[in-house]
């Protein structure tokens, strides 16, 4: 069996590569593309680590007893995920891992749709919803951190922490995308076209002012 910490490193690697792509100028031509590609990878990492968390949750129930993740060598993760008092969403009762999968899927839908149609009318709405959902995720992460620190007496689950890291990163990226969307940088091609049109307009109006007379250039004089 592959060590779970090795698999955890795989999730972290996906998220880190997303961060590198989003904030490095070496990849892709526009900032929008970089941010959206990075965001997609971060959300994929969040999704896979949430799936893994849910798998642990189920594995624990399958095995019974106080085994949880610790049998697979992942520190105190079992003490958190195996704790029936805290391992499900209050009121709803679904495991936190499954909740994470749903949330990251929703955010990934927004990111992929925007990547394909960055000028669509719904882009602003999707960015706003993504920003709010990932922001709400931070509140949930803080609540779960409180659970790990106070009721569970400093017992931490690194799989949950990686999912929280993915959510916080997604929040920052959605925030940057929202800012970017309000600038010319969002659609460089369109803004370049607009600049070209404007330059032509200026030239045309200049020609009109001079009653059609075009001042010869140095090259014309040489000829």
């Amino acid at each position, binding site marked *: 069996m592959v060590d779970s910490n090795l698999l955890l490193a795989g999730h972290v690697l996906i998220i880190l590569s997303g961060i590198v792509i989003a904030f490095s100028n070496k990849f892709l031509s526009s900032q929008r593309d970089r941010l959206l590609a990075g965001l997609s990878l971060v959300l994929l990492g969040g999704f*896979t680590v949430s799936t893994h968390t849910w798998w642990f949750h189920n*594995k624990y*129930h399958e095995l019974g*007893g106080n085994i949880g993740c610790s049998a697979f060598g992942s520190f105190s993760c079992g003490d958190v995920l195996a*704790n029936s008092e805290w391992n499900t969403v209050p009121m709803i009762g679904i495991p936190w891992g499954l909740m994470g999968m*749903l949330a990251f*899927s929703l955010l990934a839908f927004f990111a*992929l749709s925007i990547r394909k149609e960055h000028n669509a009318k719904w882009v602003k709405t999707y960015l706003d919803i993504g920003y709010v959902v990932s922001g709400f995720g931070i509140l949930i992460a803080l609540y779960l951190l409180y659970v790990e620190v106070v009721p569970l007496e400093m017992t931490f689950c690194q799989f949950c922490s990686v999912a929280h890291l993915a959510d916080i990163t997604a929040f920052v990226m959605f925030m940057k995308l929202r800012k970017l969307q309000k600038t010319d940088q969002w659609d460089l091609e369109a803004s370049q076209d607009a600049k070209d049109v404007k330059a032509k307009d200026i030239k045309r109006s200049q020609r009109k002012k001079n009653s059609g007379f075009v001042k010869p250039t140095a090259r014309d004089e040489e000829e």
Partner: protein
Amino acid sequence: MKINELAKTTRAESDSRMGSILLVCGVFFIAVILVFSTTDAIPIGVDEGEMPPNIKGESHVAGTGDVWNNFDLYSQFQSNWTEGDYNSTWFVIEFMSTDCPVCMSYGDEIEELSEYWSGRVQFIAVAVDFQFNEEFTSSPEEIIAFQEKSDFEGCNHGKGNCNTRDGGPHDKVLYVDDRDASSMTDWGVQGTPTSYILSPNGLVVWNQRNNQGQDLIDGLVELVPTDGMGGGA
């Protein structure tokens, strides 16, 4: 012309979203299938075949004075137990109250059963208080007195001496303090005494509520193997 362009744009936008939603749903369902196909989750509950909620608190062993130790029910289970393994310990979980008259008179049966099944079945008495009834309030001393059948005024609605309970000391029964009724609530227990039998891997195999008309002893005889045990039921 403009209408045509608008229609084209709208179609392209909806196509892109449809593509995204198909991709996300596809990945999501593959992940769900992967999780379900590689795990066999057992639901949490107190019906037969379910994994009961954990019981955590402090426990007391008869004859150890006023020493209480940490107790965690899940840590008692043998997760790799298989049927036919006769060396494993089964569990009887008995929700009871020191102020419950029926529990007072049931004390002799618990004593006999725990003595007979000693080594094969671990009896765990979960001592609760009823949050809505002021007559059902105990103390750690009262629980110990009930367990050891010693002199203490306060059992049986707070009006009787604990040494008037039927039967002898419960030397083979582990008493767990659940005076805040947290485990009682988790297990959905409505009154005392209420019994459950758990297999060595922790699954509920007998629930008193689902087996009306059958006594605990009947459940034990039917479910727990007696191979290698001395005496007879």
